[in-house]
């Protein structure tokens, strides 16, 4: 089908309207180079460099045990980072993700304690996340309210509802096989079994963003909502579904959290939103929208995660960790602009000098 739509002879294009010289459109020469030097590639290099360094110089880092614990630690951030990447690419933000995870956890606890079938509990919990996402989506996409303000509001609201739901109780007696499943590993690889599901989510979002018309539209929207509307991109509808996806995935993260720690509480995953956003931005997604990739974000999440784990393995205080996370975030945005500022300054000086008599 794609072949037939590629215009050939019968295309109704004007035959060579007047232009002064026929143009050439070189394609390939810059593509590979650009990919290799792109902002998200930097994060990937940093991740690889760090992993190599850590494996060599930190005792016990290079072992399947690391893989298992590290991945278990990053799974919630990894999950939520996926829809967050798409949302930030469209130029919006969702600060309520951690609260949705908390509300999901609280719901699970209350329903399970109330004697509901565990599968039904899981289904309802995901639905709660979807409903939260729809609420955000309605306010942002349908009413057109600024997402930053809306999700600050729902950050408080959803966390509040979690408190209302479960109060200060904690529910812990989830079925053993289920909680065991959530910490089980795939044979000797050390990779947690749930990573299979997480991988499915990552691939789904990666394909959605980079290989579908919908994803194309998101990049367009991120730069210019108006221009996107003129080419038939359903800006409001796309945003709405992104928030629903964000709600659903946050619910999955909430379920994972609850079952991994076998504890359903209202304060689960508090503050996770900032960790997610930090990882996403570190992965090269532009806070202004329009730029970013799933691969870069994946590297960003894993970079922070493995740094985290390496520091803990070396018994370095968390103090260092949060400071380093902050510095990484700042440097990842500041460094390029300092670079270009220096270039610009040099250029001006050169021009000045050459033109001055």
């Amino acid at each position, binding site marked *: *089908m*794609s*072949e037939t*739509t*590629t*215009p050939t002879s019968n*295309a*109704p*294009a*004007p035959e*060579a*309207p*007047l*232009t002064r*010289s*026929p*143009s050439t*459109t*070189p*394609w390939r*020469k*810059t*593509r590979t180079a*650009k990919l290799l030097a792109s902002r998200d590639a930097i994060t990937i290099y940093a991740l690889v460099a760090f992993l190599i360094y850590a494996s060599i110089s930190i005792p016990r880092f290079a072992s399947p045990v690391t893989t298992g614990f590290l991945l278990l630690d990053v799974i919630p951030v990894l999950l939520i980072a996926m829809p967050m990447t798409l949302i930030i690419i469209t130029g919006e933000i969702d600060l309520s993700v951690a609260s949705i995870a908390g509300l999901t956890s609280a719901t699970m606890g209350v329903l399970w304690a109330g004697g509901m079938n565990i599968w039904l509990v899981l289904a309802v919990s995901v639905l709660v996340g979807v409903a939260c996402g729809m609420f955000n989506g309605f306010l942002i996409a349908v009413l057109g309210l600024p997402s930053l303000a809306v999700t600050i509001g729902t950050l408080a609201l959803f966390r509040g509802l979690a408190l209302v739901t479960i109060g200060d109780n904690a529910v812990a007696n989830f079925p053993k096989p289920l909680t065991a499943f959530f910490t089980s590993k795939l044979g000797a690889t050390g990779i947690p079994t749930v990573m299979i599901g997480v991988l499915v989510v990552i691939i789904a979002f990666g*394909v959605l963003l980079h*290989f*579908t*018309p919908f*994803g*194309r*539209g998101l*990049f*367009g929207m991120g*730069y*210019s909502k*108006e*221009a*996107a*509307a*003129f*080419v*038939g*991109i*359903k800006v409001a509808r796309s945003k709405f579904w992104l928030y629903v996806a964000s709600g659903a995935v946050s619910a999955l993260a909430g379920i994972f959290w609850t079952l991994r720690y076998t504890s359903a509480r209202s304060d689960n995953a508090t503050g996770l939103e900032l960790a997610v956003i930090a990882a996403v931005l570190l992965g090269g997604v532009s806070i202004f929208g*329009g730029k970013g990739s799933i691969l870069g974000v994946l590297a960003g999440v894993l970079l922070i995660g493995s740094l985290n784990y390496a520091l803990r393995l070396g018994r370095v205080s968390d103090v260092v960790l949060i400071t380093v996370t902050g510095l990484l975030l700042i440097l990842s945005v500041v460094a390029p602009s300092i670079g270009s500022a220096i270039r610009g300054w040099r*250029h001006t000086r050169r*021009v*000045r000098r050459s*033109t*001055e008599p």
Partner: protein
Amino acid sequence: MQQTDSTRSGPLREEPALTLIHAAKTFGPVVALADGTIEILPGEIHALVGENGAGKSTLVKILAGLHRPDSGDFRVAGESVQFRSVGDSKEAKISVIYQEPTLFPDLSVAENIFIGRQPKGRFGLISRSAMVKEAARLFERLGVPIDPTRIAEGLSIADQQIIEIAKAISLDAKVLVMDEPTAALSGVEVDRLFAVARSLREKGTGILFISHRFEEVFELCDRITVMRDGRYIATHQTVDVTVEEIVKEMVGRDIGALFPKTEAEIGGVVLEVEQLSRAGVFKDISFQVRSGEIVALAGLVGAGRTEVARAVFGIDPYDAGAITFEGRRLKARDPQASITAGMGFVPEDRRKQGLVMELSVARNVTLTLRNKFTTAGLINGAAERRAAKHWSERLHVKTGSLEHPVSTLSGGNQQKVVLAKWLATEPRLLIIDEPTRGIDVGTKSEVHRLISELAGRGIAILMISSELPEVLGMADKVLVMREGQITAELNRADANPESIMHAATSTAGGTP
């Protein structure tokens, strides 16, 4: 209408208000201005003309203090100056009004006029009442009814320009630079602007007037400076030259007829709009567009033409009425459905609506075709790139690489990308809003020829234009709108400037 008084005898040879000689400016490898030269006398209106990319904007930005020239001699009132900032330019009593006025939407009109130099009252604090009073006085002098206390958001471009002028007057500007001020104005508004400009000239202000509309240049200006490819070409007394001579200097060659209308075979109805209404915007709009036909929507800015087109395409909602495309009802508020049905829309604001400036040429071209190059829902990258290449070459888009962002292209080339994007969808109806806004003479006729050719291939064209010559030259049928309603439907034979202006304004001299 005003009398053309450009026959006024040559200005006295006095100290120029401003001179810029051999100014150059480069950005990296790009030479934006090779030789910027201009002289503005007090009490003259001086036109600066040139194609897009001729360096006019760079020159204006140098005058405004936004760019520092790499070299050249710059004098204001005889004194050599080096502007380091916009503030320096203002200090030198130079006021610049850009094509798109730069008002602060959240601030009040009065505050916009006086920002940075608000009158002070008690305790050294800003006196709001003095500010409002002063603004009201300025508007009275300009003869416009704008409420100084309202916020600037939502003002028409004409009003915004008036506010810019009021700002310039209150600044006591010696030189006023107007960069294409009339591009978005209706006839009445243009007249109002010209009256203001003339009265400023009488008071000794030197005005630099940039426009692509020759009839305006010749009506208003005393002298004309021509630029081409970043270089100064010549300065003429308006009375000494003709439009043809100026155009020749601008493009460096003769160009053909401006409106190369070719006869096309008019076929069946493609688009039928019935009783379309939206409260407060337009009412009972009904018309048809046939294949091969060019229908022009004429009228003043703000008459609701663009709004109708947006509703037809599905960008905006409508309250009542029906839109039928090739016999099938179109869904409201669904541009994707309109595109699938075979419609395209070239919007008036290329930078904001027509293109995603930061995306590559290729991505822009294929943005309309997102859903076509898919296999099992996934985008087929190779097919996409082939299509982008094909259409860019067809329209001769000049770019280093299809991977470059569209923002690196010139205005004319950008407009070609917009057209390429829509032609790639093989539309059967193309809505074109202000097809030649902000496009230089050379590309203008290229665009006109293209539109004619498209009609010749059987594509139905709905064109919105504020330029009467364009409407008269291109359209098979002219619909005139006023205050949200269609007030006349004229055939090509019946359409003339008088009939259109009459329908557009209805009550003669409807200037408020």
